[in-house]
């Protein structure tokens, strides 16, 4: 049996280890307590790691975009042999959550895909300014404004985003309407909707479960409501939420629902993809769709074929508007994260991703209207695609992407409350004006 004196050194060691471990954990906590989220470069790295670029996106797993990514990758690898490129496809509904976590940790991809507007601007402090690195792209690509924050460019546009009105000619025909003459004014739209409703279809397919239906409605109809000066002022940040024009759009949002333009239960119907599935399935006369990476001419053409038609926003306010246009701007783009070890390589990879050959694949195979204006779009024989491309030179940016994420989130909730009758249009606009200060 050992004595107390013989065990003492071991006990001391154990005690010391225990105390050290606890102290270490406490120190870790204490040290970390003083640290904010890293703002700049994080961690070291070996030379081998520097020769690898990681790209986060939500598309590289899609079969329809495989040709695009293959083309971009081969182009880059030809210029930079030995540099490995990893495209990591994240689920879209988790994308910004994952990216937010990466930003807080100061570690993550070298390059990230962004939606233009608020989603990119909210994260601009984590991105490298690209103006002095992308001068050679400025003329070839369009849609830069959506990827600028305070005049500085943080991402390169790959596709354009816009809100054309798609319609189903078969539904129009069934309602006794001329399928080749979509509505050009509010009066015509109301007449058409009444006829479509009478024929047993809904006039518009709408899903507002996420609250984003209002974004499409506001940006989609605004070219027919706002005067050019008002439109530009809104984009410049001078937004008058109490103006008759804004009220007109929000009134219309509520009124059209009350008048039964939409499928029932819009607040419990998902926009992606229930709303667009209904339209593709011929269960609606119209839908405000996209031109970027989903719910666009190509996905509708697959189901509707020659019955697919497209038109620009009708004129709702003749006092302000004599001619409308397609609201469109940069859709998705790539930015370089601040912590990348090889900014120049990352920019070169983005240039490959924005290359004409790669973008052509994105347009032809995936249906996204590319940001590259030099692409020959005549190879696609879908009439709607040709019309959309022809409208691009007159387009102006979307109204809702000029808003902050906070105001957009509020607008999503208010759009649902307007439909359910829990808030008045005036009260909703008051809240939005307060949020948008």
């Amino acid at each position: 049996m050992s004595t107390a004196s013989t065990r003492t050194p071991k006990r001391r060691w154990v005690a010391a280890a225990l105390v050290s471990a606890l102290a270490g954990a406490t120190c870790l906590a204490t040290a970390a307590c003083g640290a904010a989220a890293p703002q700049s470069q994080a961690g070291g790295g070996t030379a081998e790691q520097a020769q690898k670029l990681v790209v986060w996106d939500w598309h590289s797993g899609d079969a329809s975009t495989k040709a695009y990514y293959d083309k971009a990758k081969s182009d880059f690898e030809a210029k930079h042999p030995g540099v490995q490129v990893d495209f990591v496809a994240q689920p879209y509904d988790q994308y910004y959550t994952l990216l937010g976590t990466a930003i807080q940790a100061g570690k993550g991809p070298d390059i990230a895909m962004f939606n233009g507007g608020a989603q990119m601007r909210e994260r601009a402090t984590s991105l490298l300014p690209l103006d002095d690195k992308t001068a050679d792209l400025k003329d070839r690509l369009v849609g830069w404004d959506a990827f600028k924050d305070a005049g500085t460019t943080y991402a390169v546009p790959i596709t354009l985003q816009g809100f054309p009105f798609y319609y189903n000619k078969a539904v129009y025909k069934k309602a006794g309407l001329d399928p080749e003459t979509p509505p050009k004014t509010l009066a015509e739209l109301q007449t058409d909707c009444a006829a479509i409703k009478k024929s047993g279809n809904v006039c518009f397919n709408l899903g507002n479960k996420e609250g984003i239906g209002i974004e499409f409605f506001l940006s989609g109809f605004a070219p027919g409501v706002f005067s050019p000066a008002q439109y530009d002022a809104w984009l410049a940040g001078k937004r008058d939420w109490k103006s008759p024009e804004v009220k007109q759009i929000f009134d219309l949002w509520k009124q059209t629902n009350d008048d039964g333009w939409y499928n029932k239960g819009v607040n419990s119907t998902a926009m992606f993809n229930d709303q667009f599935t209904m339209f593709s399935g011929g269960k609606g006369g119209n839908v405000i769709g996209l031109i970027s990476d989903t719910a666009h001419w190509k996905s509708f053409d697959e189901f509707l074929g020659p019955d697919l038609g497209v038109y620009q926003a009708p004129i709702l306010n003749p006092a302000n508007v004599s001619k409308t246009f397609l609201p469109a701007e940069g859709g998705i783009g790539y930015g370089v994260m601040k912590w990348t070890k090889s900014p120049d390589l990352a920019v070169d990879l983005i240039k490959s991703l924005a290359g004409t050959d790669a973008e052509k694949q994105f347009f032809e195979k995936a249906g996204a209207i590319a940001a590259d204006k030099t692409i020959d779009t005549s190879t696609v024989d879908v009439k709607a695609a040709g019309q959309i491309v022809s409208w691009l030179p007159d387009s102006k940016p979307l109204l809702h992407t000029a808003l902050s994420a906070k105001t957009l989130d509020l607008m999503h909730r208010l759009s649902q409350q307007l439909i359910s009758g829990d808030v008045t249009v005036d009260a909703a606009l008051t809240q939005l004006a307060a949020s948008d200060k």
Partner: protein
Amino acid sequence: MTSAGEAITTPRRTTARVRRWHISEHKLAPLVLVTPALLVIVGLRIVPLILGAQYSLTGDGARNGMFVGLGNYRALAGDPVFRTAIKNVGLLFVALPVAVAVPGILATFLFLKVPGHRFYRSVYFFPVVLSPVIIGAIFNILLSYDGPLNQGLGKLGIGPVDWLGNSHVAIFSVIGVHIWATFGMALVIFMAGFSTLDQSLLDAARCDGANLPQTIRHVVVPELSRTIQFVFVTTMIGMLTGMFGLVYVMTAGGPGGATYLPEFYVWVTQGQMNSPALASAASMVLFVLMLVVGLAQIRLIKRVTKEV
């Protein structure tokens, strides 16, 4: 040469030292044994908790890393969405007795061995093994505006209800589905509690002429008091922290933010609004809320189930 006095005092000092070490040994041994667990708890629980608390006192965006005191907590107090989330926690309280009573009553039937009790036991437990996302997707179909439930109601002459799109109904739909999806686990716990019931007490009650309600009130409930406490607390914690999947899939927090719960608020604030410090403050509120609720429930249930 030492004096007599020294000769006496020196052994005393040695004895005292030995005794002190002896006490330390007893204290040290358990500490050494629990050290691995302690390190895991400190490293993976306490440190993140302290970090979260610290982070909740800093700013977001341009003020990232700056100390803002209680600014985030003031922002939460002024945010109607967060207030709705907290209000919905109150609704969870209201629903809690139902969430406990349903498995309690069903477990009683199973304990009484109603015909087919083995089959029912499996069926009741089955939803527990399903992912909330799958359950949400199933109920999205069942509860959709033109879904089977509304079609059934239509045949009864009752107008359709927008179960997930009506701001006054949606939260009850989500809570109802959550109760349906999770009561199997509470049922199993109740079954385990029933298996520990002292049969002699039940026999004694029967001999004394107690009827079923009296037996339940004076024998079953006091005997199951610890089980009931446990089910109450775990069910409440499950409601506060385990409904994210359902809310996300079924309503996405809508309509109009009517189905927000603190956990969903934390996710939206961090992931969608890119405001991690504000999200940390919200999660600290949720943590304190759970702590208070858990302790209050234990105290309350102890008092209620104590046989006088």
